[in-house]
């Protein structure tokens, strides 16, 4: 059984002191231990951004892809070796700007992937432009007069897209976040955990303090039913998505891997790819 140390690397962090991403990293590492995952079967597919550097700090097989395209790469990884634990991580720009198309389609396909979006409402690494989740009116380098676009609502969007597991955590609320990550990894299908992860350098509005007073913890909402999609949408609307906890889980979720016709039950990676003569003949039969 792996320990916390097993999931750490010698790499020194490149994040600013106080960055919310430290909390995401910590919760993830704790969850990996709690889930009894083996570092060799762990794959982290990370995007480009401050957030995307998370892979550098976790001992696992890490693929750091081009901006916005973690999810298709992760699908390729999972389908190549269905025994692996596949975790994607990236920022709100990576996920919801350039990555939006892949995000929507990954949810529809329901491959067994956990997606941690480290949402700071800003582009950190490129030094402070607004992001798709930035609030209206928010002033940034590219919105000096305030943001005029309607923000993406990741959770309602995920529900509309048919995502089978939708949750939101807060980097400061470690126990809940860690428990959400664990549930997400255990979920058989695509699991989104949008994680509020404040940027202390470029976002002086959506700060730790601001969130602490704005967020509603769904765990404390009496009678909240996380299996009711329509109800979930209503509650999200009511709270302008400022909630944490498990928003929705489809208990009947069957992952893509189990539905794909003819797809190998054992990992494709590591097979010898030998062909049987009879199979080859069968393929060629249609060409005679």
């Amino acid at each position, binding site marked *: 059984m792996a320990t916390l140390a097993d999931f750490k690397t010698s790499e020194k962090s490149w994040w600013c002191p106080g960055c919310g991403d430290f909390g995401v990293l910590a919760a993830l590492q704790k969850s990996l231990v709690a889930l009894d995952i083996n570092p*060799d079967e762990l*794959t982290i597919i990370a995007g480009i951004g401050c957030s995307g550097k998370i892979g550098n700090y976790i001992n696992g097989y890490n*693929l750091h892809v081009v901006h916005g*395209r973690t999810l298709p790469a992760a699908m390729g990884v*999972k389908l*190549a070796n269905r025994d692996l634990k596949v975790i994607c991580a990236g920022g709100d720009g990576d996920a919801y700007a350039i990555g939006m198309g892949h995000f*929507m389609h990954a949810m529809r*396909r329901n491959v067994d992937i956990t997606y941690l979006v480290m949402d700071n409402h800003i582009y950190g690494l490129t030094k402070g432009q607004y992001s798709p989740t930035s609030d209206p009116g928010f002033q940034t380098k590219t919105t000096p007069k305030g943001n005029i676009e309607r923000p993406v609502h990741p959770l309602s969007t995920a529900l509309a897209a048919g995502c089978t597991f939708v949750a939101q955590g807060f980097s400061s609320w470690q126990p809940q976040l860690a428990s959400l990550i664990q549930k997400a990894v255990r979920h058989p299908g695509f699991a989104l955990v949008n994680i509020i992860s404040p940027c202390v350098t470029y976002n002086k509005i959506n700060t730790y303090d601001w969130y602490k007073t704005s967020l509603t913890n769904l765990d404390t909402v009496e009678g909240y039913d996380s299996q009711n999609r329509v109800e979930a949408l209503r509650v999200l609307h009511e709270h302008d998505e400022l909630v944490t906890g498990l928003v929705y889980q489809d208990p009947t979720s069957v992952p893509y891997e189990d539905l794909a016709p003819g797809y190998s039950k054992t990992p494709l990676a590591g097979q010898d*790819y030998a062909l049987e003569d009879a199979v080859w003949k069968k*393929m060629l039969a249609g060409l005679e």
Partner: protein
Amino acid sequence: MDSTTTTVPVIAWKIGGDQGEGIDSTGDALATVANRMGYYVYGYKSFSSRIKGGHTNYKVRIGVDPLEATTETTEILVALNQETIDKNVSEVRTGGFVLADQAFKPHLPEGAAAHLVELPLTEIAKEVGSVLMRNMVAVGASAALLNLPLGPFDSYVERRFGSKGAQIVESNKAAIRRGFEEIQTRVGHLLDIRLGEPRPGDRLLMTGNDAMALGAIAGGCRIMAAYPITPASDVMEALIKWFPLVGGVVVQAEDEMAAVLMAIGAGFAGARGMTATSGPGFSLMQEAIGLASMTETPVVIADIQRSGPSTGMPTKQEQSDLLQMVNGSHGEAPRIVLTPSSIEEVFADAMDAFNLADGYQCPVLIASDLSLGLWKRTVERSAIDYRRAAIDRGELVSPEELLALGRDVFKRYELNDSGISPRSVPGMPFGQFLATGNEHGENGKVTEDPANRDRMMHKRLHKLDRFDREGVLTEGPKDADIMLVAIGSTVGILREAKRDLEAHGHRVGLSWLRYLSPFPVEATRAALAQAQRVLVVEQNATGQLLSLMKVQGIGHEPRFSSFLKVNGVPFTPEEVVRKVSGLLPVREVV
């Protein structure tokens, strides 16, 4: 009239009508039967980016020797409407036949050299069951004109329609027989030529796209992701059909960026992944090619080129993505670019591509083209052999080595002489590493150290220095009067032209490049050094292949010239013969 009939090695048959009228399956029926009888077949379709309506035609050349191109003349034209006659009659050679449906009151234009045979195709079809059978009646009539026996058509119908019930089988058979008899009883065999005897063998009738899919399967590919696009979609569709037999999986991605990233993810995770696309999709994959190159992740990308730029002419032939294949993606991202020139080479290259991708740990691009991808041709079964090469995963670190190293020691990008570092794959204890598109050190960690940068750029760029596949193949004399040079489907065309030119007494050579990256500099130089003249024949507007040669200092001399075509129609051997004849002094046949 057998006495006046010459035996010929090839006859060309063509059927034309509106798109959506079953022209495809009619041509396929004839081609399949001829192929099974032991003839060599080459099929060629002219079609538009449209589903129903608009003229389309399918030409099938049937011969006693291998065929590799479509040509300018036709012996038998089956016309399902007047437009077909108007658009195609000029290529029907003197003494040839236009076989037309009475229903549309066909007529030949003034001065046409062909015979018009009006047949009640629609009428007969209705009699035997349904107007849908009209094309089958035409097939039967064609068989009679071609002097082919009916038996093989019967077995074709049984195989093809067997699952649809006895009635369908019988009425199709009847349609063919009625068409056959109609010719026999009404006109007899009127063609002044007669196809030579077939030479039965163990052969297949297939396209380059079929070969691509089969090569991939034989090469160990088990994950394919693609987005539909003409003329590449049927690589995906073939794999969807065949993969369940070997446990593989195809994902129809949301776009080409997703498709190629899925294939890269698969490569990272230790499986063999690929994608297939055409120009527009290939342009969208440029960033990902850089990622695979930088992270040294194996991936195979097939580009079945079509007419560009932009949407261009989606159903038309071209070879104009070469420069993008060699140089596309920002920065300097080493890759291998293979250029198969025949269905057999497509199979071989598709199969080898996966060994090469694993072996050199880089993206392998396969440059096919529409003609090579879509047109059916007779191929020896022995050329489509899944045992032609063993699966070779390249440099992999062993579990034992990793165990001996322990945690945090393995260097995924270790520098060594070859530039190829043994890799680990997820699941191997102590093999963890970071694969990143950022510049990185031997252990994979991101670094901007200038000295490391130099070393890593050198590693990636020079690992291909040892690439040692045969770069150029040549047929004919090296010191030829003229050396024809090409890649892709143009090579088959040149081979047919070469035969003709030789018949006219010219000493003609044919050289084709088997890959463009790394560029086979020495092999190209050697192949072309002694030729009096060199003609680089390309289906693009700017002479991209010659440009790639010129960068290497080959092709600047006046003995080199280009023959280019970019109007969407493939070169014909005849065109090449005319061009070459214009370049060379006339020679007497010896």
